[in-house]
């Protein structure tokens, strides 16, 4: 169960971090609505305050518009996670095992799913139902969760967009424990050619 909880939080974060996912956020942060799939490399930095520890993870991701999301970690561990509307599949390259979690078997996914939808739509009214939205600087949105369920996992979420406001470049999550999670997206591409078995699980 703790691992499922982790997975659910993962889902929450991953889908929040879609580089091209926004359509219109707040007062004019515009994303590109015209794409089928977007890919990017990422660098994820986790800072554990109590232990004074910083861990950097590298990998790549791909996201279909209104569809699946593929999250691949290459370093320091190797895994691929595929998230659909009904299930989350996680393949551990080191053990060769695949874990499958159904959304309906883990109700906390619903909370995360609702938050995810709010973010994806970029609808200010929907965002305002779960987050207090502010704009500390141009190209940056600060979301403070108002939902008690979300408050257990994050204190605030900061989204940073590209200068043309078409791409999400960075996401930073402040946790209630003081820990931080930062994900930086690099090499963002829209509708790149993908191998036919790209979405296959377990991957080749």
């Amino acid at each position: 169960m703790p691992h499922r909880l982790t997975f659910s939080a993962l889902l929450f974060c991953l889908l929040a971090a879609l580089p091209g996912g926004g359509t219109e956020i707040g007062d004019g942060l515009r994303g590109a609505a015209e794409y089928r799939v977007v890919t990017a490399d990422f660098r994820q930095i986790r800072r554990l305050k109590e232990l004074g520890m910083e861990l950097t993870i590298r990998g790549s991701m791909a996201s279909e518009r209104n569809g699946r999301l593929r999250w691949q970690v290459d370093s320091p561990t190797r895994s691929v996670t595929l998230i659909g509307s009904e299930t989350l599949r996680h393949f551990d390259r080191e053990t060769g095992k695949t874990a499958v979690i159904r959304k309906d078997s883990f109700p906390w996914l619903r909370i995360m799913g609702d938050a995810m939808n709010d973010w994806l739509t970029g609808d200010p009214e929907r965002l305002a139902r779960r987050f207090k939205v502010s704009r500390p600087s141009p190209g940056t949105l600060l979301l403070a969760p108002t939902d008690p369920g979300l408050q257990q996992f994050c204190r605030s979420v900061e989204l940073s967009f590209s200068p043309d406001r078409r791409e999400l470049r960075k996401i930073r999550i402040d946790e209630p424990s003081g820990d931080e999670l930062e994900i930086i997206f690099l090499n963002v591409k829209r509708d790149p050619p993908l191998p036919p078995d790209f979405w296959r699980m377990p991957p080749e």
Partner: protein
Amino acid sequence: MKRFAEQLLRFTRRHGPGCAAAVILLGLLSGAALLRARFTNDVSRLFPDTPESRATFQVLRETRLADTVQLEFLSERSIVRHEAWLDRTAGRIAAIPGVRNVLFRYRSGDLLSELEDLTGAIPRMFPPDILRTCDPDAAARSAVKQLAFPAPGGMRLLRSQPFGIERTLLLRLKNLDETTGFLTAPEHPCFVSRDGKRAMIIFESGIELGDADAVRRLFAAVREAAAPLPEGVKMRIVSGCSHTLGNEETLKRDATVAGSVSLLFFLAIFFAFYRRGGAPDWRALWIPAVPLYASLLALGLMTLFFREICLYVIGLGSCITGLAIDQGIHVYAACRGPEAEKRVAALVKPMTLSAATSILVFVFLALTGICAYRQLAFFAGTSLALSCFIALALLPHLLDRDRPAAELPLPGMRFRLPGAARLLLCAAVAAAAGFGIRALLRNADFSLASLDGTPAEILREEAEFRAAWRKAGPSAAVIAAAGPTGDAAQQRLRSVTDRLEGRIAVAGPPVPPRSERRRNRGMWRSDPARREIAELETRTRAACLRAGLPANFFDPFFLRLRAGIDGGGDGLPPLLEHVSRRMVREHPGGASAVALMADSPENARAAREALRRQGFRDCALLSKEAFHTIIREELGGRFRVLFALSVLAALLLAAAVFRNFTDVLRALTPVLVSFALLAVLGGATGFRATPAAAFALVLLTGLAVDYGIYAVCRRNDPDMPEVRTPVVLSAVTTVAGAGALLVSKHPALFGTGAVLAPGIAAACLCGLALASRPAGAAPKGSGEKKKPHSFPTAALPLLFVLLFSGGGCAGKGAVSPREAAAAEEIRERLRLYPDTPFTVQGVARLEAPGRGFTFLLGAEIDPAAGKIRAAAVHPGSGVLLFRIPEAEAGSPAAASPPPRELLRTARNLSDALRRIFLHKNPEPLAVSQKQEYIAVCSADGVETRLHPWGMERRRDAWFSPSWRCEYRDGGKETVYRIPERGVSLRLSIRHTGSGEKNDPDTGLRHRR
């Protein structure tokens, strides 16, 4: 006998005042005893006293599982805004005397902290051996992988639970969650439904099973505690206690209605027939007074032998009174002029014989071992015997002898048929009866609901409650154990669940008994265990460094573990506390423990076997399936024996008195005729035979034979008065008494009335026909030789058909469709379509004799609302052919006009689609193994049969148009047929447009 009766009459005439005083004194004593009597509507009294049913109800009573009350609060808007009010209400309810374990808020609200708390509980939940399963290197590697996830908030948990020991506890909770199918909104730490519009407070009431007064007081107190409700909020009480209350109200209402109707009928007869010189003969009022008084005496006597009297018996009392009135009616008819005593004495033979047959049948009922029937047997037997005695000994002195006897203008009912025609008629009746019996057996309902008179409103509310708070699928069955303490109960429960381990999935209490928890912690406090912890800590630190983590990464785990070992409290983490309290209950006078499993026939069979091996010692299986099996096996099995015995007893008694084969058969003819009529009527109307109806059939044997006895006595005894008028009048009173039960809402009383009313009417008509002496024929006693009558002999085939056709009524040979080999297949088929709104598009092919017509069918189906909208389009021209439900059919612009059959089918297509797509919840119906299909019957009476060649659906009543629907190719193709019209409709369902989800199993796309 006649001489004895005459002497008795002379004695009572001489000692009239003394006899009257004795009877009045007995009445007063009975009345006083009744004032102190206790009445109950406990459903357990309707079950046989076998080890299993005894244990079941004893455990149900001792564990007090049925006393749980759920208060549901409903709001049009979010109920969460009333959370504070609900907290206060829960507090007020907890203050009600007798109420325990009130639960609304079951978590603190901080899930991560609650999960972390599980680590501190390890030393009580497991022995130290569990440490040997810990692999520090694997834990460190796993931690690094989880850190790689971009997941906020999980770090605390990762550090305090490296080895996943706590997962065992969480898996137990998950199993419980899945078994109960309980649905709550997880984001709320209290009971709030997924839609956020319902909240629930649960508590234990401590009310004993069947104590309706206590339930009434409790419900009033609860309503007072919850008042005033916030604006827009409604409260509903859902509890087994509501069944107690509902049953009592139903029974009281039914008894009142049945008694009143019976009384009204008698008064109507009284004013119509018992008149003298145009004025009512008031002395005739003694006729109903005699059985009523005898009933009073019998009830008073009952209090000496039974601690509590079943209200069910009182409900049937009106019927018994109706039977005993017959005796007074016969005495009234005989008690005329100077020869009155001689004429009354001539009645002693038929009256005592008919009373004896009825009493014997009641005695057989007592042998079923069912408490309610034992009481009924005592009450009815005593009442009939006393009534018979008073009617013979005292009633003649209370009646007016000078009034001429009124005779009904009854037509002659003698008819003669040629021998071959008689045989043919009997064979036809026997065939129809045999067919009817098979239909009756097919429709038999031996479920718990057949004994439950809870009003429909309460059942509807319960169904709504289940739909809102539970997942679809089988409900949970409970294995319960009782004991003096929680530990003892839990140990007993384990002795059963251990036998089931590895065979079926059973979810027991998530925490071990208290004694085991203390023992575990004691072991953790030993020096070897502490050394083992220290060693593990050292190895874990090293593993962390090897994996690139700080050495102290997992320190929170060891800190919490040691705190749990050294702590003194026995409190459980919040996540386990409320579940544990509900599964292991301690209450004044004892405790109980329960384990849960899916309520399937396989599970029930395995659990009953384990319980049987354990000897049903303070353990029982409580579930619908278990009750269904008990009723089917215990009641169904007994019924056959009882039925055969009652017919045999009537036969032997008649043989002992008449000593003539023809007379014996003649006396039994009304029984056979009434059985045949009931079989035909029951089969034709689709009547659901219940246990009460089955036992009423036994009762009918004893009653119907009376009419044959009077008829035979009348034919044979020259002193016997004319019986046709009293027979009709007594039948009318009996039918009125039994017929009044037809307005009963309690299924047990209704079933009894449904059998007795038409059965007695048929027996009466048959008795009248038999009692009519043929023209020129003389009674046997007159010395003239009479040609033996062949009609009763011809009835023999009927007797055999009735006794032996389809004798497998819900007995051990019957098999539930859910137990059949293809049960899973039928369930899968019924689960074919989703519960959420979806659309289908298909090519429909209508085939009529000699021609076919193809059209495109699109339908929008909303299973929750039970709504279907559909439209049919001509594939070539695109012209709209018809729409449903508007049913706008027929467009002349179609290139090829649809056949009339299509237009007719279109009008019914909505109904057909409803059955195809919305039929999901099969209700089990016992079917014979001899038949080559499995049948399930839906609530709306549609029967589904699974044949080797496919699935067939049809209505289950006679003479109604049948239709059937076959699924092929995993539901992609559905063929709908109306065989009577030679029409079939083939639906080839294909995918619909985008934005919809594809179901890989069926190829259907359905909209979410």
